[in-house]
């Protein structure tokens, strides 16, 4: 027998050495890199773990009795062993990007197209590292597939600052190589605008304001024609996807994939949007896991619209919460949803779960008790019985807008204030306020007041979009943050410690990676 007799190559699927030949091989790799971020279950922006974990700030209230892990995060009782951290999922995206980068040189294809793909993959890797740095701080920086890395699985954490450097470098590559717009057949894939927006966001997060202002400003003019939608609601409906406000949007479709709702990363896995099922109120086919926090209600009602407006409150509040309009204002017809159920019915259904939550009392409005339920990201626009149940694929079709132009405006405003360019900041803020129906002629005495306006508008604009925790972290020290949580009657506020700025590196990593150390604050 010759030596080849013992060389058995796996005949079941192509091995890496013979793959990566054609453009289609390279193109097919890209969806696998998007997948972990958008997984319907356990994806960072999916529903089950990620979206709940990242809404651990004071704008949300998690109802008792839900999965213990979410309860631990929001009450700041989590430990390295608490489930539900998306640490590993984010690294799945990074590994796949690294595999792409390792092999793309071997692919024979048009150079221009190749560069675009490299830009797209750089964007995704930058985004994954962005989310890791924002959530975990110091993390292992992997730019090679672990199997090719001499260290293998064992890799120490890099300082958070180095991770941010990689984030910015990746977004710059993305910016250079991505197209300004995509044809309809490529809708859902990232563009240069998304890269610039994320680059600007990373620069603001790292307090590099002059550069941030420059980058973000580019998105305010041609060739970019982003703008706010007239109706705030259009950012949360499946009928108005990829609108002019959408800078980076994740696609979902409940009809793609026959394998049911619980799987991720598999051929038959459903590609649906499960968030309505998690956040919708009781009685609507949903699991009703959370409601608005106390302070977000207070802050929404604190500034009423100018006299003569068609509604009493901030227009965004009508998309954010369900409530009974006639309790607090006149002239509006009360809404009905999910098969013509009125708010009283919804509120009644919610009581079994809400009533056991001690401390959850919304501020009174006038002499009426505050009664609110979460509306944003439910299927409120479908007046059907049980419309939030994910077991019906038709309910899982909404897209998630990860970066809206509103965020670009507010990030730009923040950078401008820090750079002393108050006028441009005011222009941005007025656009936000105008769409919300608030007084457009408001004036601010100096940078301090303007910054307070940025804080407030971020809170209201991005309620339940997972921004609030990271915004507070950027603006306040841990002690200040704790005080805000206490003042705002956030659940578990008294448990907040400096270490809760970060999530701990999970136990599963600590137990297997001999080189890594837990974040200093968590040791």
């Amino acid at each position, binding site marked *: 027998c010759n030596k080849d007799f013992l060389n058995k190559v796996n005949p079941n*699927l192509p091995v890496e050495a013979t793959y990566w030949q054609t453009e289609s091989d390279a193109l097919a790799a890209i*969806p*696998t890199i998007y997948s972990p971020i958008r997984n319907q279950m356990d994806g960072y922006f999916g529903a089950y773990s990620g979206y709940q974990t990242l809404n651990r700030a004071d704008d949300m209230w998690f109802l008792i009795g839900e999965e213990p892990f979410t309860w631990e995060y929001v009450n700041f009782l989590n430990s390295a062993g608490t489930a539900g951290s998306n*640490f590993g999922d984010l690294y799945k995206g990074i*590994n796949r990007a690294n595999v792409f980068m390792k092999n793309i040189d071997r692919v024979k294809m048009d150079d221009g197209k190749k560069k675009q793909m490299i830009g797209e993959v750089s964007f995704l890797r930058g985004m994954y590292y962005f989310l890791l740095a924002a959530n975990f701080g110091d993390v292992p920086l992997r730019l090679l597939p672990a*199997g090719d890395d001499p260290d293998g699985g064992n890799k120490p954490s890099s300082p958070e600052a180095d991770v941010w450097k990689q984030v910015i470098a990746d977004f710059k590559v993305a910016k250079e190589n991505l197209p300004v717009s995509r044809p309809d057949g490529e809708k859902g894939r990232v563009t240069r605008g998304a890269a610039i927006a994320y680059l600007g966001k990373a620069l603001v997060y790292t307090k590099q304001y002059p550069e941030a202002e420059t980058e973000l400003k580019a998105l305010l003019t041609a060739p970019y024609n982003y703008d706010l939608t007239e109706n705030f609601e259009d950012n949360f409906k499946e009928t108005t996807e990829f609108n002019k406000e959408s800078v980076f949007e994740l696609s979902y479709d409940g009809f793609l994939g026959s394998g049911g709702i619980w799987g991720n990363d598999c*051929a038959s896995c459903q590609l649906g949007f499960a968030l309505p099922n998690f956040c919708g109120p009781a009685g609507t086919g949903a699991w009703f896991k959370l409601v608005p926090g106390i302070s977000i209600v207070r802050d929404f009602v604190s500034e009423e619209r100018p006299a003569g407006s068609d509604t009493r409150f901030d227009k965004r509040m009508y998309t954010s919460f369900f409530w009974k309009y006639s309790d607090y204002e006149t002239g509006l017809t009360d809404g009905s949803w999910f098969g013509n159920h009125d708010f009283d019915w919804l509120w009644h259904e919610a009581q079994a779960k809400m009533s056991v939550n001690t401390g959850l009392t919304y501020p009174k409005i006038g002499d009426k008790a505050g009664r609110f339920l979460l509306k944003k990201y439910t299927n409120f626009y479908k007046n059907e019985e049980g419309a939030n149940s994910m077991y019906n694929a038709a309910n899982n079709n909404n897209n998630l807008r990860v970066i809206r132009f509103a965020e670009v405006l507010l990030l730009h405003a923040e950078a401008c204030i820090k750079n002393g360019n108050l006028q441009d900041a005011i222009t941005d803020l007025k656009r936000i306020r105008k769409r919300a129906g608030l007084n457009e002629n408001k004036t601010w005495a100096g940078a301090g007041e303007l910054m307070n306006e940025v804080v407030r508008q971020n809170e209201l604009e991005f309620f339940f979009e997972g921004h609030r925790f990271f915004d507070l972290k950027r603006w306040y020290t841990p002690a200040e943050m704790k005080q805000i949580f206490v003042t705002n009657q956030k659940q578990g506020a008294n448990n907040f410690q400096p270490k809760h700025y970060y999530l701990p590196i999970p136990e599963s990593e600590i137990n*297997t990676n001999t080189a890594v150390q837990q974040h200093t604050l968590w040791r």
Partner: protein
Amino acid sequence: QQVLQVKGTVRDKNNNPLPGATVTVKGTTTATQTDENGNFILNAEKGQTLEFTYTGLQTAEASITGTNTITVSLNEGSQMDEVVVIGYGTIKKKDLTGAVASVTGKDLQSNLAKSAAGALQGRIAGVSVSNAGGTPGAGLSINIRGLGSLRSNAPLYVIDGVFGDINLVDPNDIASLEVLKDASAAAIYGSRAANGVVIVTTKGGRKNSPAVIGINAFTGVQSLPKKMDLMSGPQWKAIEKENGLLPAQAESFMANTNWQNEVFHTAPINKVNLDVSGGGERSTYNVSAGYMDQDGILKTTGYKAFTIRTKNTFSFFNDHFRMGNTFLIKSGDRKYSDLTITDVLRQNALLPIYDPAILGGYATYAPWMKNLENPVGFLNLHNKHVYQTDIMLNGYAEADLFIKGLKYRLNVGINRTTGRNYDRGLAYTYGTANQQSYLNENAFFNNQWLIENTLHYDRTLNKHTIHVLAGYSAQENTSRGFGASRKDLPSGTDAINAGALPDQSTSGSLQEAALISQFGRLVYSYDSRYLLTASLRRDGSSKFEDGHRYGVFPSIALGWNVMNERFFEAAKNTVNELKVRASYGRLGNQEIPNYTTQNITTYGINYIQGGKLWPGSITGINWVSRPDLTWEETVTSNIGLDLAFLRNKLNISADYYIRDTRGVLLNINQPPSTGLTGSPVMNAGTISNKGFEFLATYRNAVGALNYTIGVNASTVKNEVSAVTVGTVQQFEGFNPRGEGVVSWAKVGYPIGGFWVIKTDGLFQSDAEAQAYKDANGNVIQPKARGGDIKFVDFNGDGRIDNNDRQYVGSPFPKLAYGIRGGLDYKGVDLAFFFDGMYGNKIYNYTRARMEQTNEVNNHSASLLNSWTPSNTNTDIPRYTREDPNDNKRRVSDRWIESGAFFRLKTVELGYTLPKQWLSKATLKNGRIFLAADNLFTATKYKGYTPDLGQSNGENGDYTGVFSAGTDYGRFPLARTIMFGIQANF
């Protein structure tokens, strides 16, 4: 001198004529063989001595004194003259240096053995044969000297020179089984011998003997020896009501179904074997056929199989060129059910069996009940078969070469398995949903070939005896399979094509593996006093990468026959045999999946672009092993002693060994930050087994009464002695339904040791529960009330959690033993075999599920004795649905039980028909027998059977190394009673 014509008969110890025995005039070349009636005639001189020899039996001598006919009975061979089959040859037992145990055909004649593996059970010290599944046709779990690996611990089987599956061989066809236990004995099989080797030699024919037909048939019944004591419907209702838990809707349920009675039954078993053997001057033959038809004690299960085998030898050129073959075909139909046994025990007795009003016709659980299958419905609505045909072809050619004692042998073996899994389900209502009908079929095709070239040199020169072997072999395994499934088949159809298209699925795979080996062995004996065996084998496996694929496996063994020393002469009358053996060797294990180092493409990770599915595929997202992955190696040191006393009537053999498995092949969890899924196989640690084995047999006769008694006993201490990867020095084991890890592999402890929270009785009042405090005055179990279990706060932190686990034992027995006995008296024979274990623990998860009270299902009748304020003299906690104290917690010694047992495994009573009856029926010999299997078991274990080896995973069970000693609803072992006949024409 006077030349006489000497006539005579040679018989065996049962007085049956022995055809084919060799009769030699001692010191001459004059020899003959006995005819079919055991008779011989030859010429010899008065005063000469005749020597009678027959393989496997003791040699006898008789002096020629006159013209009288000589009748000789040959006794079963003493150990000293036995020939033992070792790898690639045979050796006289007295020259053996390794730890080899052998079971010959005579011992195997126990007709109870439904499988060849079963024939090994309890016979050999250090060999554990235990129950893997219990369903008909399911294999047995065989371990030699403890668990060395966290992967396969199955020994290597060599059937007439071909690597195969022991289940291929009908026990009736076995001439001998040899178990090579230590490294020295097994090293010649290097690569795959780390878990020991079982050599199976099938029966052949005899030269110069006319055809003999043998028939062997039995019929019997199997039954469930033990039933779980469960609540009846009214009892369950009463206790639920008493505790205020009876769902209102349950009141109207009046059925009282005894589910155990409905799913288990007394099942017939029938087996018949026929063989014809004989031989001429230059050839021998043995052709056999067997058929078995066994129903399982679980209704709808069963096994049917037939085997056909032929073994031939041919010799030419004055016996200088020899050829031979074994051809074997086995075709079986195994009908099984994966009914979860715990569903039978937990299904509510209030549920009737049938409900003609719903789809399928079987009642389904009511909304207030725990959602469990209707066991009778499940059995009848699902139809699962494995149809399998195995073909094994072995052929060899052997030629004496020009130097005396030198021969060349070519051995070729081919194994083919083709089969089909068939899984058909009918539509039925389960709860509120309708289950679709389906058909799922998988075809599989396995091919293996083996070529071995060996040179043998065997010479005796004066006091030097040497055997030299050199060989080269190559083998390849290829498995291909494909399957298809569809749903919604119209009734009356039974083919994939009838199913609906939308939910169809297909699959297929191809696996290839190859092995190349070179090997050599030297066996040297000086004056039958000093013995040496040395061997070396080098194996190359396709499972490893170039540069890491070859393993070299050496061994050396020394033996000293003390009784052959001159100085021992005086003692030899008392101590008839005294041999000391010592060996050291290294063996390999490569039992990992193919292609583990190869990075492949993963398909089906999709996204959406432009509103349409965007199919994704990429390489490098699952862990593959590093290219330096290599052989798992087992180093064994063995010392042994063989002794015989009382003129060889008492034989004792004892061995002590240390067996270290290094570079254990194990899937090791990797950091999530690598972003890869799965876990690579790594060479990850060391597992050590130390053990002592003891075997004693005593044979004697009192008048016409012959009797033997044999005892074997073994101990093994298993320990994970090092873990070389990762930062946590332990691996998780048994974790029933993810409810809690109860067994572990931790450094310094046995594989599968149990770590649980200890219990300390029941709190007799709420006050007593609240008074249970730690050193700081914290109430340790704040939610506990009277009747709840008191758990031991092992780490003293004031609360009960998994950090309070402590080691409470392992599934390894401190002692495993077997006692065999046999006697015969004037044609009546009796044989019995007891086996037992002592010091092992069982995790009774089945009982945990029957006694947990938080779900609305049936329970053990023992819960009728639950604690109440007026029934405090009990160890059963209070009957509570909420169970706030978590009395049912899995990580608790409440579910750990002693696995000790003592069992009458088999007993057999036979009667050999007298000669005068036989002649009328033209029978050469005939025997009838009555036998029983699993007649009684003495044990405190509360489950069906304490015999819990590694499970095969059927019936809701759990598989793998860690499944030993865990009862996850294991299929109960049957008690079997049989009647049979054996006859030769």
